[in-house]
């Protein structure tokens, strides 16, 4: 997909990534038949308030332009501040939000950053499967294991916990995993991380 097919959206989301994931899925659901090819979250750390922005890669320029126009014209269709939207060189919305949206779109388009929530085959990555199977059924191109310079063997089992969030690294969609009980791997990102001051 070319750069022109990615739309960035910045609603100023702060807080847990889980909330950003919900937001991303809600946007994607609204796209209907023009469903996004992939949807990512991006950390925006330049502004006064660190937050999370979203990006959507659309299957065609026509679809991307339609999304851009709808968001620029109607807003996201939910309460809250007007979002920033970016598409190619075009910007819409408050300056900071538009800049956040542009950052998200640029990272995704260049495939240098972004944590993928939706990606081709993401719906098929559930339960327990081998690394080989993971690479086969979805867009993840590589599995990296914390603390290990080598790739895991294709037969290694990955316990997905229904929460697989690969990220763009140097043009490839990479899933970072770590050793887990029983000689398995789990994705690095824990679905329900320990919140601060919640019984700990």
């Amino acid at each position, binding site marked *: 997909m070319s750069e022109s097919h990615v739309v960035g959206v910045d609603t100023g989301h702060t807080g847990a*990534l889980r909330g950003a994931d919900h937001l991303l899925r809600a946007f994607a659901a609204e796209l209907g038949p023009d469903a996004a090819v992939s949807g990512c979250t991006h950390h925006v750390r330049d502004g006064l308030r*660190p937050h999370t922005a979203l990006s959507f890669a659309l299957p065609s320029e026509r679809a991307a332009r339609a999304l851009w126009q709808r968001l620029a014209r109607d807003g996201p269709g939910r309460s809250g501040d007007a979002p920033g939207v970016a598409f190619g060189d075009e910007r819409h919305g408050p300056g900071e939000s538009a800049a956040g949206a542009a950052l998200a779109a640029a990272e995704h388009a260049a495939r240098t950053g972004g944590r993928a929530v939706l990606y081709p085959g993401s719906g098929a990555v559930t339960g327990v499967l081998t690394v080989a199977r993971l690479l086969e059924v979805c867009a993840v191109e590589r599995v990296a294991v914390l603390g290990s310079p080598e790739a895991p063997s294709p037969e290694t089992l990955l316990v997905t916990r229904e929460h697989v969030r690969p990220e763009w690294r140097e043009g490839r969609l990479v899933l970072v995993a770590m*050793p*887990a*009980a029983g000689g398995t791997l789990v994705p690095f990102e824990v679905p329900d991380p320990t919140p601060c001051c919640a*019984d*700990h």
Partner: protein
Amino acid sequence: MGHTHGHEHGHHHHHEHGHEGADTTLPAAFDTAVPDEALTPEQRSRRSLLRRAGLLGAGLAAGSVLAQGAATPAYASTGGRRKNGYLWLAGDHHIHTQYSSDGKYRVGDQVRQGAAHGLDWMVITDHGSDAHARIGVDKVNPDIREARDTYEDTLVFQGLEWNIPAAEHGTVFVHPGRNEVAVLKQFETDYDGSVKGATDSTPANEALAVAGLTFLSEQVRSRRVKDVLMLANHPARKGLDSPHEIRAWRDATPASHQIAVGFEGAPGHQAGGIEKTYGMGVARGLYDNSPSANSFAGYPPESYRTWGGFDWMTATVGGLWDSLLAEGRPWWITANSDSHQVYTDTAVRGGPDSDFNLNGRHTDPVYGGKIDTTQGDYWPGQYSRTHVGSDGFSYAAVMDGIRAGRIWVDHGGLLSGLDARVAGGGRWATLGGALHVRKGTRVTLTVDLGLAGGANWAGFVPKLARVDVVQGDVTGPVSDRDTLSAPTARVAKSYEVNKSSGTVRLTYDLGAVDRPVYVRLRGTDGNRSAVGLRGAAVDPAGPAVDVLGDADPWKDLWFYSNPVWVLPS
């Protein structure tokens, strides 16, 4: 060379003075003039622990590095009393009680447990919060004072767990005195990130953290309190403590009396990784977060997990901690319980009338009728210990020892004693200190290790398998304050320990020293190792990443010491 060591560490060289100072009394458990029969049950328990650990009575004096007329290792001195060395007091600066919204126990419960588990000093650190600033910080004080009276052989500090603006949590604690509550309360009200709504990682909030440390420094300077220390807790847990923030805290207050002096080398919650059948089945240390918008962009995924139970900043040879040490300025590590709710305990939070926000505390715990395996904490002293070389048994001496970096830490009772001395040119220095020698002087590190003298709290005698000497060059202050690696730090030498009891002496020849360097120690039971994150040439057998949901902390034990610098001129 740009470092400032001469002044900060110069006083460590006068170990022979042997003055008694203010430390008039020794805890009865340490004092062999007090017969066993005269001890209370707690004191007797403490003494038997010391005895098993080889900390009491005849010890290592004969084989000491200091046999040639210098001091005797602290743990070797007959009667438990140092003659010319230090009293190594075990402690924990990160402990919660019913005055934390996520806590449970009475202060007395935690102090009783800490004392029984072998601690000499403890810091009560309930979370900074609206309720704590308004109510808890006052209400906890009578409980702490009562515990001081009840457990007179345990030093109990009042502190708080500061929500560092723009960053993680940190222990702030004061020397006991008339204004201990007033200072803590004002600090919490004015500088706590949660109370002030200043948790986001913004420059303004980072500045508020520095202002808080300046405030604390001013309280000491004006003699409102005798002393204050700050130590950052679980620093890499969420990627919130950026390298430049850590450096800013370190440099916020005068080098002559620094307030922020270190971070947890190993976090608490060490039981979090115990397998699901018997425990939480999550991450050791409850290190299970991933990057957020507030985290420092330069931290890799590896930094969010523990390595042999230690925080990535400490566990990575050539990593962030070494980058701080390479600057030639003090920054120390500790290890604590972060005890909130203890694994396999049977008490539950009191209720149902418990209203934390109204009362500033939970009601007293009650018996829950079953063993709770859904918690990840240990009692203070049960698993993690911070050993501080103290010039006597007093609050001031422990704080001085921490500020001076005379600290080593272990997990699971891996060691009973550690005495490290770097010697050359007729002088020597120990942990946290600096040896000043003429360029070209031959320098030797000698380490006496007291192996575990008895069973730990899991019921077995831990065995030390290997000790590593980590060495790095002192390259002076960094221009990029977000530097997080030290290119020259590496494991310089490893020693296999083929002995299961008694003591071990290691000697490491630094050669004719021609440039400023530092050395630090690390050791392991040898159960789990992996090539270090900066490669085999740097660390061929470092700690492995802790397995998610299957990390029994008793089967992967490490110790770490703070550094000693060698500064030729």
